[in-house]
């Protein structure tokens, strides 16, 4: 990474090296509180989880603090478990399905609501309401709506002449059902942040493009999309992290069932720890998730760096 940004070159020459060192020192001062917080609050849990995954950690270990070291046995046990592949597949489907639709719908709504029309601001704020509900509440409401016999979704399907769907009681439909719930929960997040990103794009660009005769799609394609990239990147990355670790939604709506059809790595990790009392294995699954995030984090950084380079060019 080149440290000399074009802007610094144009700055009037004071003394050769001082500004940059000054800059670095100031930067660290600005970063200090965040660094201290992250170190204190995440260092210990992260280390504890890593250590636990290499131990035969039982309920007894909580009290005595002693757990024998077992190397990679927990990881081996997890990979050997027939549920592992189920959980991986479900996690992948859940994450991909949620992300694509949350982002797609969120972006479409953000574009729609950024046009100024009567009530646009109010309607947009209203869309945040689902976030104010405790998950035990929104989960329960969705569970009722999904009910096979008397749920309102099936009533609607029957009304338009379709067959009722066994949303939560069939192994084939349960995953789509929880994905649907999660999309619903995730739309406001995508909408609001992308909307903020859209607002940051100067209106003059659009006006100029209109004068040049660019249509709505062309304006989106050549102005909105490229200028939104830093925000798009972070929304997708955060969305990925939040979606992979979704726990409450699944627990409230299906509990991981029926027959493990909605068991993801996160719910399985919890189950290994608190139902099977295999805390080491639960921690190992948690670390697998951290590893997955690491890979995507690296990809994100690479693309973000590319964006930065573009912006600097």
């Amino acid at each position: 990474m080149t440290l000399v940004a074009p802007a610094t070159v144009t700055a009037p020459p004071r003394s050769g090296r001082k500004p940059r060192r000054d800059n670095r020192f100031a930067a660290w001062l600005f970063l200090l509180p965040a660094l201290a917080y992250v170190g204190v609050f995440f260092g210990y849990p992260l280390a504890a989880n890593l250590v636990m995954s290499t131990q035969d950690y039982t309920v007894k270990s909580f009290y005595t603090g002693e757990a024998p070291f077992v190397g990679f046995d927990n990881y081996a046990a997890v990979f050997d478990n027939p549920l592992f592949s189920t959980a991986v597949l479900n996690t992948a489907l859940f994450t991909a399905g949620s992300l694509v639709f949350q982002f797609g719908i969120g972006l479409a709504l953000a574009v729609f609501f950024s046009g100024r029309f009567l009530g646009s601001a109010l309607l947009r704020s209203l869309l945040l309401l689902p976030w104010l509900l405790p998950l035990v509440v929104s989960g329960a409401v969705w569970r009722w709506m999904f009910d096979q016999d008397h749920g309102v979704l099936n009533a609607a399907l029957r009304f338009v002449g379709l067959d009722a769907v066994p949303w939560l009681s069939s192994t084939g439909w349960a995953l789509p059902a929880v994905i649907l719930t999660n999309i619903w929960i995730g739309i406001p997040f995508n909408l609001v942040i992308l909307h903020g990103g859209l607002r940051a794009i100067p209106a003059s660009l659009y006006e100029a493009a209109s004068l040049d005769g660019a249509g709505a799609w062309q304006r989106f394609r050549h102005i909105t999309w490229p200028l939104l990239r830093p925000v798009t990147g972070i929304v997708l990355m955060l969305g990925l992290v939040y979606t992979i670790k979704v726990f409450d939604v699944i627990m409230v709506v299906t509990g991981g069932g029926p027959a493990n059809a909605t068991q993801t790595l996160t719910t399985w990790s919890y189950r290994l720890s608190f139902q099977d009392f295999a805390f080491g294995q639960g921690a190992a699954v948690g670390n697998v998730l951290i590893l997955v995030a690491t890979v995507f984090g690296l990809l994100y950084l690479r693309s973000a760096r590319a964006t930065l380079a573009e912006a600097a060019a």
Partner: protein
Amino acid sequence: MKARTVFGVLIVAVLLFPLYWMLNASLQPSGALLRPDPAFFPVDGTLDGYRKALSSQGPHLFSSVVVALGTVFVSLAIAAPASYALAQLRVRGGPVLVFVLLIVQMIPGIVMANALYTVFSNLGLIDNYLGLVLADSTATIPFAILLLRAFMISVPKELTEASRVDGAGYWRTFRSIILPVSRNALVTAGLFSFLFAWADFLFAVTLTTGQSFEPITVGIYRFVGNQSADWNGIMATAVLAAVPAAVLLVVAQRYVVAGLTSGAVKD
């Protein structure tokens, strides 16, 4: 113009239907929505749920507001300077920190809760507002830094460099250039910090004992026993809890719009 409003209302209506269903449930006896013909309108309604919720949930609501606002404050106070440094000052190792911030968010909630309980019980931070605010900030600080950084990257360097040339220190540049320009992003980050803290259940239940205060997400369990669930009361509590928070949200959104118009002058 009119057509867009109608379409917008329609979208909101569809997306908020589950909320209407909750409102409907809060006005009907437990299990009423699972009968063969669920009542779309609470015609034979009952206000029992609201009566119960009002009598027991008021203090919990207050606690939740305090914790959520505290979290917004702490998160922004720590995240904003850090984002400025990461986005504008190009620190060596900055990308590593960004990377770490992404990774730490993957630590399972229960692992965080277990670890924080141990530390907090040693420090006397159990049943303490500050303790809960600091714990809730584990979700919001990484989020706020990443989000603000993404927005601050697009603040033109010329703007900050010019201020530096004028002889302003980094702190003044941060305060008088970066913060006003990023007002929009700050409100967005603050908004979600509020919502994250508001919705938190795990830290709340782990780090409070109910002896001194209790956030609403835990308070709602007054209606959920190991063998019973009073849906009427639960839904009523959820509706009541959503009202003050919704007002806060709308006010905040107004503020965004206001910030935009004043910011627009600079363009």
